[in-house]
């Protein structure tokens, strides 16, 4: 299950999405708004997405992870709009019978997400603002 939302991410709801009694392991990754970028203090962050394409790319990542590892359920949720320091921007939960596969699949999803899903963030500082320099998207996914 994948989703783009503009409200606060509920970690409990994300974990519920991967509930499965055959899965002995659940790995949860949370990305949060950090208070610094290099030596600059960050005050808040705006996230913008190419909604339709972002969902397509997230679904492709979910499918690839399920094909590559014995994963029973995956949930990927990204938040868009204005976020404050410490708020969760992305949650990825992977349920699998065993922890090794759950860790590997979760790692694959977050690393590939950053290289393929069309989302942009803008940081706000005391003295200005700026788009975060990101990845030129990979064509492989």
């Amino acid at each position, binding site marked *: 299950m994948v989703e783009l939302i503009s409200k606060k991410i509920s970690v409990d709801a994300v974990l519920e999405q991967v509930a499965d009694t055959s899965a002995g392991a659940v790995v949860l990754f949370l990305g949060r708004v950090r208070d610094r970028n290099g030596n600059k203090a960050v005050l808040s962050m705006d996230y913008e997405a190419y909604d339709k394409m972002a969902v397509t790319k997230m679904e492709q990542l979910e499918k690839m992870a399920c094909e590559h590892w014995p994963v029973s359920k995956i949930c990927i949720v990204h938040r868009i709009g204005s976020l404050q320091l410490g708020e969760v921007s992305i949650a990825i939960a992977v349920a699998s019978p065993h922890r090794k596969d759950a860790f590997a699949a979760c790692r694959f999803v977050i690393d590939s997400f*950053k290289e393929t899903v069309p989302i*942009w963030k803008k940081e706000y500082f005391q003295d200005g603002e700026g788009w975060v*320099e990101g990845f030129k998207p990979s064509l492989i996914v």
Partner: protein
Amino acid sequence: MRINLKFFGQLRELTGRSDEQIEVEPGAKIEELARVLAERFPKINKHLAVVSFSVNSEYVRKEKQLQDGDEVGLLPPISGG
């Protein structure tokens, strides 16, 4: 033929728009569209080298041939997560 453009992030701010329709020659490729865009939106010219393109929600190379009605995304380097 008509192409539906989508601008994001810095490109949306520089062009002052999220969507735009543009006419290109039938059979035009992404690289030709990029040349048209550079003339029409001089402010994004210097950014085009690092922009990726999508057609109908899939990343494409500059050799990709366009079809009438395609939705083309102009995607600056991404920074989600």
